[in-house]
């Protein structure tokens, strides 16, 4: 047999083996792919089509072109305020959640007794369902008889209205969300990141005379930037989708103070039965979130440092 023929045969065998392997890969991916197409991508595309219709669930969708978009962008008095409110919530919540989770992770990363117990205690609130937490915090923050205000009054501090006060309702939701968020999965991810920082860097810094703060500032923080970036992206996306806490605790009130875009979409879809309109709201907001994520991605090159890269 000639060399060319040998090479060709070897190539054919390799290609067949590769194809076989690829088929097996697709075969194992198939359940997830079917689920993704059937339950995520498919409904998502269907909702995009519904944005061009008037659809009240009870009758078939009626094509109306871009009327829904025009109405959302030019006539809906709640659209822009609810987006602004949602961003305000995210602007309060995300830095506090990330900072708090990082701080807790740093504390848990220290070599003291009982870190396993503390880790569990910090993680448990994240396991409490949001609905139960909302009811619980509703009682704690009751303006008149809640234990928080009773404590504040005992200390001579003016007690705010919390959920029943227009100025305080949104910050109260932030507080409630932080309780379940600081010690949760974000903390675990930070903990993993901290434990990935090479010890020799700390040793080298210590040899150079760096104190604890300097080691944290110049070793820990830079090497944690990829983890912070990851949590930031997910944190922002999660915060902008705030819905359950507002739905349970305040129903969007008082006086629209906690009427977030997620609640606005829910109302139009499942209470007013304006499905086409709700889909339009959802898609417009999805574009906003995607845009924000792209901006964060672009800006990350200025402050995210990956260990080992030049």
């Amino acid at each position, binding site marked *: 047999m000639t060399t060319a023929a040998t090479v060709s045969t070897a190539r054919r065998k390799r290609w067949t083996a590769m194809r076989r392997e690829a088929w097996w890969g697709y075969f194992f991916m198939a359940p997830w792919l079917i689920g993704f197409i059937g339950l995520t991508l498919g409904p998502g595309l269907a909702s995009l089509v519904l944005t061009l219709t008037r659809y009240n*669930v009870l009758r078939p969708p009626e094509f109306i072109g871009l009327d829904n978009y025009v109405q959302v962008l030019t006539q809906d008095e709640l659209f822009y305020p609810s987006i602004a409110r949602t961003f305000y919530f995210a602007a309060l919540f995300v830095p506090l959640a990330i900072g708090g989770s990082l701080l807790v992770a740093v504390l848990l990363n220290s070599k003291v007794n009982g870190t396993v117990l503390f880790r569990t205690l910090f993680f448990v609130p994240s396991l409490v369902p949001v609905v139960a937490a909302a009811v619980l915090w509703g009682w704690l923050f009751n*303006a008149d008889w809640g234990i928080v205000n009773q404590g504040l009054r005992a200390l001579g501090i003016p007690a705010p209205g919390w959920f029943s006060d227009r100025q305080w309702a949104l910050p109260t939701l932030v507080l409630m969300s932080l309780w379940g968020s600081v010690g949760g999965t974000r903390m675990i991810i930070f903990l993993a990141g901290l434990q990935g920082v090479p010890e020799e860097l700390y040793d080298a810094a210590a040899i150079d005379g760096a104190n604890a703060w300097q080691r944290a500032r110049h070793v820990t923080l830079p090497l944690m930037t990829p983890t912070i970036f990851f949590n930031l992206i997910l944190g922002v996306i999660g915060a902008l989708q705030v819905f359950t806490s507002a739905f349970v605790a305040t129903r969007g009130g008082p006086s629209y103070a906690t009427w977030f875009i997620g609640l606005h979409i829910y109302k139009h879809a499942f209470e007013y039965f304006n499905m086409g309109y709700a889909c339009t709201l959802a898609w417009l907001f999805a574009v906003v979130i995607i845009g924000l994520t792209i901006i964060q991605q672009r800006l990350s090159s200025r402050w995210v440092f990956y260990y080992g890269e030049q």
Partner: protein
Amino acid sequence: MASKLSRRELIKRGSIAATGVLLSACQPKVVEKVVEVTREVEKVVEKEKVVKETVEVEKVVEKEKVVKETVVVDAQAQKKAAMKAEMSWAFRADIEQPWPTERADSFTDMYPDVHIEQVVLARSDMYPKEYAMHAAGTLPDICFFYHSHFQQWRAIENGVVMPVDEFANNDQLDLNEWFPVFIDMGMYKGKLYGLPSWGWSGWDCITINSLLLEEAGIEAPEPTSHATSMDTITEWIFKFYDPPKGDGPAERFGISIGIGDISFETLCRAFNGYFISPDGTKCLIGEDENANQAVKWWYDLAVTEKVTPVAGELAAGEYVAWAEGKLAMFMTGSLGVINAERTTRDPQVCKLGNIMFPTRKDGKIPSQMRGGHWNISAASKNGAVAWEFIKHLSGKDGTIGFNLVANQGALVRPDALPYLKGKSPVYNWFEQNLMDGMIIHAPANSRGSELGDAIAQNATRWFDRRDPMPFEEGMMMFHDAVQKVLDLPMG
């Protein structure tokens, strides 16, 4: 030497085995098929013979004998034989067992070939579920909508439920078995769309802790009297208000008025006006002097004098606060009074008392009768059987059980009322209104949910005593928000 099994081979064989198991588990059910066999039978038909022949004959006339044969038909047996169905029945989760099961089982006892599956819907999303089921073609044969929740009109307009006039006419059903007002609530454009389920008389009233009246040496008004003026009620609100000691809440609030369409309608009617116009197209607050007077009264109590709790301030709700003596009175309707009766525990702290709103200048008693119906899904293939079942639900026994066993408010039948009155004298207080009460005015465009949100969100701003808004400014803001909803196209 045994050949080694590679990892690749193991995974391959394992996945084939798993797929095989999965496929066999997902085998379609073997369903017994009933096949109708059509056979052709030769029929012998005698052809009619027409013979024309004119013959003179002696006529013999035989007198016709008419024999009447009386055949006794067992109508009930015939009906039983015809009643065959697998049906489903949707109802709200707070309808307590064993009423639903008792109704379904007792119906099956009468018609053994009818089986009823219970479909329980949570109150919070019962209408979205019903609408979604209708869209999916899975709406149970028997479903429910409320006249007073406005969803009924949207359901009828969109062909979700079917009219029942034909069934009622065929049965020669006497609709006077129910109070006319509740039958009227199920009428839309001249057709009847179900039989009454819920229904309460709605005589708007104020539930008061009558121990406070006793302590003050004031004779409590008769529960059925409409002689107490609004000025007297106002006086009592201030009299029983116990201000806070320090920065905290009041020791006892004078009255609680929950923010919602019910409260606005109650007060406007108590002050001789209306909140929504009878045709359901206009918000009269901001336009009608009487309605304006009503909301001014409320504003003064809540914002100026601060004798009412702020929305959300009563953590455990009005009933509990009232039963614990932290609330002198609260505004409610007949159903609320019955619920208050159930809530009172300590007679040393709280005693049920009732103040009816005064009679209006037009002679009517302020009220807003509300109710709901058992409906038949328009897509149901068992319409006739479903009709029999909703008669079973809405009949005398069903209605009594709905009240006393399921713990619901269904004052819809005159013949059920004596049993209810035997259980609690409170049912006597509101009986007259069942004959001549004022029906709630629904938004003409069925935008009930949008209306509720506009009211809740704008009223909390208007009545926010921490950041007071001038009354007129708040009223016009509220009016504009509500009118905007009423101007929307049909839902």
